[in-house]
């Protein structure tokens, strides 16, 4: 029983990380129809920049702020210089484009920071908390909390503000949205800024847990993509659901089946779901077109 609880706690923590990465992907996808394979690089940059700022003895919360701002600028620049000129390219080209961006960012990161993993101090004192035999660190609670906050924040932003409604409109029917005066370019920029911000937050929150290095973005990006697809592209609830499911499958798979095969189990599950539901758990087809 204690074991099961521990697996669940671990799974939910990992799942929350995946969910945040996937939410970033979904945000961009719903407006631009671009799958941003460089989303994981935002997360990596989050951890590495945080490490750098802390090394310069910048106060912790300022470091968080600077990191966030810098990565948002990176995301914004990416939209401006890459996605905008390639507007209207087919999905294959767009995948390659963001793949190129991901290679580029990762290469630069390895030139700046080298190959070694780094350590980032946790947000708050990190003495583990014991709940009915399962241990959880405050940082893991921060990660889960952050995921919940992000979901709530996105809900407010997207459902309760006019910009968010414009965002939804632009996602559902870009041309009709333009006729309301909603600029798709602005929405596209907005989506990249938003998702770079999400990536940065995820990166900073998990840095104390996972020892970031120049290449951590790759696997997170791949897992985030799996989660976004599993949940159904364009569906934010799907991303959260998918993230938690995948995290739990990994943790339970490692715990009860085989730790070596846990990734195969996770990806096999994604394949299985796609076989049964070709557009994911909460995919576009079941909730109408492109709703966030």
């Amino acid at each position: 029983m204690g074991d099961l609880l521990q697996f669940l706690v671990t799974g939910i923590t990992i799942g929350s990380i995946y969910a945040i990465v996937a939410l970033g992907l979904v945000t961009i996808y719903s407006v631009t129809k671009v799958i941003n394979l460089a989303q994981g690089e935002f997360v990596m940059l989050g951890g590495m920049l945080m490490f750098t700022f802390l090394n310069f003895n910048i106060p912790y919360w300022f470091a968080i702020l600077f990191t966030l701002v810098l990565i948002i600028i990176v995301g914004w620049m990416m939209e401006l210089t890459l996605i905008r000129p390639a507007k209207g390219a087919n999905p294959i080209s767009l995948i390659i484009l963001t793949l190129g961006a991901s290679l580029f960012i990762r290469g630069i990161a390895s030139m700046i920071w080298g190959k070694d993993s780094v350590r980032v101090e946790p947000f708050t004192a990190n003495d583990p908390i014991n709940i009915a035999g399962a241990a959880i660190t405050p940082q893991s609670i921060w990660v889960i909390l952050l995921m919940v906050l992000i979901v709530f924040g996105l809900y407010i932003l997207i459902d309760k503000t006019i910009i968010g409604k414009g965002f939804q409109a632009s996602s559902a029917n870009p041309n009709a949205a333009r006729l309301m005066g909603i600029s798709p370019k602005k929405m596209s920029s907005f989506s990249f800024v938003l998702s770079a911000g999400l990536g940065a937050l995820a990166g900073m929150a998990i840095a104390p847990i996972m020892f970031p290095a120049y290449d951590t973005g790759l696997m997170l990006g791949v897992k985030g993509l799996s989660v976004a697809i599993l949940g159904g592209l364009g569906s934010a609830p799907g991303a959260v659901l998918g993230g938690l499911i995948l995290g739990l499958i990994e943790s339970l798979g490692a715990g009860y089946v085989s730790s070596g095969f846990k990734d195969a189990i996770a990806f096999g599950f994604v394949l299985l779901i796609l076989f049964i539901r070709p557009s994911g758990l909460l995919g576009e087809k079941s909730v109408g077109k492109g709703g966030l």
Partner: protein
Amino acid sequence: MKKWLIILVILSIGVFLTACGKEEASGDEPVYKIGAIYSSTGHNSPLGEPQSNATQMLVDEINDNGGINGTPLEIVLADDESSQEKATQEMNRLINDENVLAVLGTSGTGESMAMKGIATQNEVPMVAAAASAQLVEPVEDSHWVFKTPQSDVLAVEKVYTYLQSEGITKVATLTDSNAFGETGLEQLEEVQGNYDIEIVAKEVYNTEDTDMSSQLTKIDSSEAEALIVWGTNPGPANIAVNMQVLGMDIPYIGSHGIANQTFIDLAGDAAEGIVIPTGRLLFPDEIPEDDANYEALDSFYTNYTEQFDGEPGNFGSYGHDNLMLVVEALENGATDRESIRDYLENEINDWVGTTGTFNMSPEDHNGLDIDSLVMAEVKEGEWVLLED
């Protein structure tokens, strides 16, 4: 923009062709030409970089002192970028284009295995710096291949000897699913019987994994009295931290894969008390002066730290021994591929390197024994020698 790209393409093809046509200047002066492939870049770069540095440094030293019996030593240093494909390419270049007498390297097991095939086919002696015992076993397939790092089995035996002395009989393993962790696990399973030790829980993790709580939880509910972790950074650091969080207090025994300061920097206070088998170059200051390897260690360490930023570590010591073994052969008149091989196989007896004391034989192309390793422990954020 289009034009510009086309120009770029043409340029790169141009450079490619000029590079191809480049003639190697060949002087009449006799030199001993040795090739070395180490992974200066790519994921094995923490291993390859000190190896590469050490090699270059030692060659310069030898040539400054008049070479080998008056003949200068030329080293062709190559980087396999931690990829098997690149290692294959460089191996072919060194053997066929550069006509080297012997090849040193490389840092990783997979890359070294690819090179082994080429060395055997071309009948060129090769001294690897990768750990896996496969490189020199079985002996009939490894006629041309030697290696200096301690085979995993030695590290495993060292660990088991230590556990025996601590009175521990039931252990759990948590190993990386990469080649390093896998060989470790194989050896751990293989020799457990010899030491009356039983592996009661066997878990693995993936190199990119960030949370090993699930595996540790399983281990925690087994009856293991100690945990053996076989991997390289950052995984073992994650495990240390996860263990602390889970409140597990069984001893943590690592591998020589984490014999570096980076591990302690990552794991922080969770690293305290962790024990590993390691070569002596992790803490040259602590090696007693009466140790057989003291002299070799001391001069190498001093010179290395003077010339480079950072410490040579165990990997630097493999780089040192690889080169010096071949130099030893050259000094004693073995100056062609065949005779270098024969010399390495038959004449290396009680040869003192920085890794340990080598005794090569037709049955053993590694030539180290368990004494080449010591146990180390993390104390107050530093690796210290654990006295027997």
